[in-house]
């Protein structure tokens, strides 16, 4: 299957200033949402480094965890948590549009869909927390 795209040279482009995403609140929130993925990725890479320390022994692992208790890392993780939650909420809103949930013929309201997803997020988080404590207790 090939998609026929219009000839680019015949399209009209309006030049956007580089600061276009600062010109409107919704554009800025869009960029924040995109930026959330960077913070999440950095957190996961740091977590991977932490797991790598485990290959060097339990002492190295514990020492790395202590390093993460510095104010700078706590601040970074706080910002990352806020970004991650922002990602979750915006992801649920876009899922409500991409994969609407139907009961019979009717789509359930978007806000209810998001509320259900937040419920799942909370339950999944509590289960993971409990399992972590159960295995490490």
């Amino acid at each position, binding site marked *: 299957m090939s998609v026929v795209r219009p000839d680019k040279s015949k399209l009209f482009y309006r030049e956007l200033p580089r600061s276009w995403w600062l010109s409107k609140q919704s554009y800025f929130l869009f960029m924040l949402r*995109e930026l959330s993925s960077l913070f999440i990725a950095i957190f996961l890479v740091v*977590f991977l480094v932490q797991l790598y320390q485990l290959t060097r022994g339990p002492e190295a692992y514990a020492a790395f965890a202590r390093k993460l208790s510095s104010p700078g890392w706590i601040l970074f993780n706080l910002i990352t948590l806020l970004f991650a939650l922002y990602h979750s909420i915006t992801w649920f809103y876009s899922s409500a549009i991409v994969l609407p949930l139907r009961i019979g013929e009717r789509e359930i309201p978007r806000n209810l869909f998001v509320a259900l997803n937040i419920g799942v997020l909370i339950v999944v988080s509590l289960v993971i927390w409990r399992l972590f404590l159960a295995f490490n207790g």
Partner: protein
Amino acid sequence: MTEAKNTEPLWWGLFSAGGVVAAFLVPVHIILFGFAVPLGWVSDSGMLYRNGLIKIYLFVLIALPLYHWAHRFYFALNDMKLGLPRKPLALLCYGGAIVGTLATIWVLLSL
């Protein structure tokens, strides 16, 4: 360029799967490993991560959101009109996610 178009569904699928993992699983892990373990609210010997099933879980948790980042970061930087060359940028983003995946496999297998 045609080759890049053919692989688009793959990257989009990984982006989407990574978005789901990030939305449902990442927040509690930030609370656990960003606050609870470093601040000593809970103890973590690390023994848990030697279990095979946990390793598969950790692979999904770490690797998939990297593709989510790659996709978003690539398109966000393009949208910012910074004049960055597209192909090297794509290579950096998606290649970075692939390197991250390989590093994750390597670390998990050496645990």
